[in-house]
């Protein structure tokens, strides 16, 4: 028979909301930086992607919650660069895929929630996917040279995948131990 203090649980929920908002803000503010050591060929880690993947694997979220996380961060990234083509598509896809991977139980849940290497590998795959979606959008946008887009995509997808998965642990370690 366990007696739960309702007030304690309530404050625990508010702390987790605070951690979510503050970590998202930190990731957003890291985006325009290019600190030496944190970039590869002038390309920095995709902090928003890292945040979406970590948030989606942490707890049992629904597909809709994963999609909304991707949508909100995609809109914020749109505001910081350019709304067309939109970043929401790639981040929503990443959020939905990560949540469904967790629900399909392809990996043991503890591994997905706490193991940094699994999360880093997940970020690597999602980064390549997200850059491919952006390249497809640029191709449909109509203005650019198609060969240039896909030539650049090869470089960007791999570089972004590598540097994002390397820096995932920096965000994942505090968040998986805290939130």
């Amino acid at each position, binding site marked *: 028979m366990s007696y739960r203090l309702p007030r304690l649980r309530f404050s625990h929920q508010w702390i987790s909301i605070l951690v979510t908002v503050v970590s998202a803000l930190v990731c957003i503010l890291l985006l*325009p930086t290019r600190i030496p050591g944190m970039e590869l060929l*002038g390309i920095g880690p995709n902090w928003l992607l890292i945040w979406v993947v970590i948030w989606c694997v942490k707890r049992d979220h629904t597909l809709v919650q994963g999609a909304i996380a991707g949508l909100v961060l995609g809109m914020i990234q749109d505001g*910081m660069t350019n709304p067309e083509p939109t970043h929401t598509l790639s981040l929503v896809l990443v959020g939905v895929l990560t949540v469904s991977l967790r629900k399909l139980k392809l990996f043991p849940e503890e591994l997905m929630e706490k193991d940094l290497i699994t999360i880093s590998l997940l970020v690597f795959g999602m980064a390549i996917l997200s*850059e491919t979606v952006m390249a497809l959008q640029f191709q449909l946008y109509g*203005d650019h040279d198609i060969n*240039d887009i896909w030539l650049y995509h090869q470089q960007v997808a791999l570089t972004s995948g590598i540097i994002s998965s390397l820096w995932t642990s920096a965000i994942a370690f505090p968040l998986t131990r805290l939130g």
Partner: protein
Amino acid sequence: MIRNSLRRWWDWRLSIFLMGIALGAGWFVRHTQGGPIMQIYQLIASPFEVNALAQEQLLSARTEELQARVQEVEMKNQKLQELLGFVSSQKKKGIVTPIIGRSADRWWNQVTLGRGSKDGILAGFVVMAPGGLVGRVTSVSPNTSRVLLVSDPTSRVGAGVTRSANMGFVKGKSKKNAVVEFFDNSPNIKVGDVVTTSSFSQLFPSGLPVGRIVSVDLNKGPAPEAILEFFAPINSLEWVVVYPHKVLEDKLPNLPKSDKTMNGNDKKDEEKKGETSVPK
């Protein structure tokens, strides 16, 4: 009992409420082009800002001598233009700004500057660095501004080769190079030619140096192309100078000798088609 039922009532309604707030915040940031985010970023980045004014003053004495000579030549040029009846534009004072951030994604070539509308910067202003043209201001907040670099694939700059006065426009290709597409089918260009903004450019004032031609491809269809290397070292810039520029809505391009190009289209239409306006 009441506490339990109250908690259960709040559980899913709270999550919907929070999702609504998150969506609203995301939409607000997207709508204001990231203004509040960039303000917060500038606040945090301000202790790390490079002292742009001091760096500019550290330019060597030789450069100052060259600048003085250029100023003298420009003044003489202005007097001659006045004699010929052209309206002379005043030498505008530039705002020296530090670069505090780069692009927030991997596809757009942009930089964030540490000065905004409070210092008089407005959208449409021209951004230059030691070397040449760097880009154009696309959005401003009170303390920051966002610049679309000339190396961005969506950037189009009406330009011409100084030596032979062949016109074309410069399309960004990579971080160091751009593609120049010419209007004439057989332009008089060669490797080493200097490319500057032309007078028919609506988004930039004329005469700004952009880069140097490094390779020419005259057989490329539909128009001859050349690869240009930018003068300004865009990747390693730490500060830039922002000059005021008003985009005139109905500025007429200089009419060339004939009104039609080899394709049979009007030259004015072809030149106007070349430039795209700022992406919203």
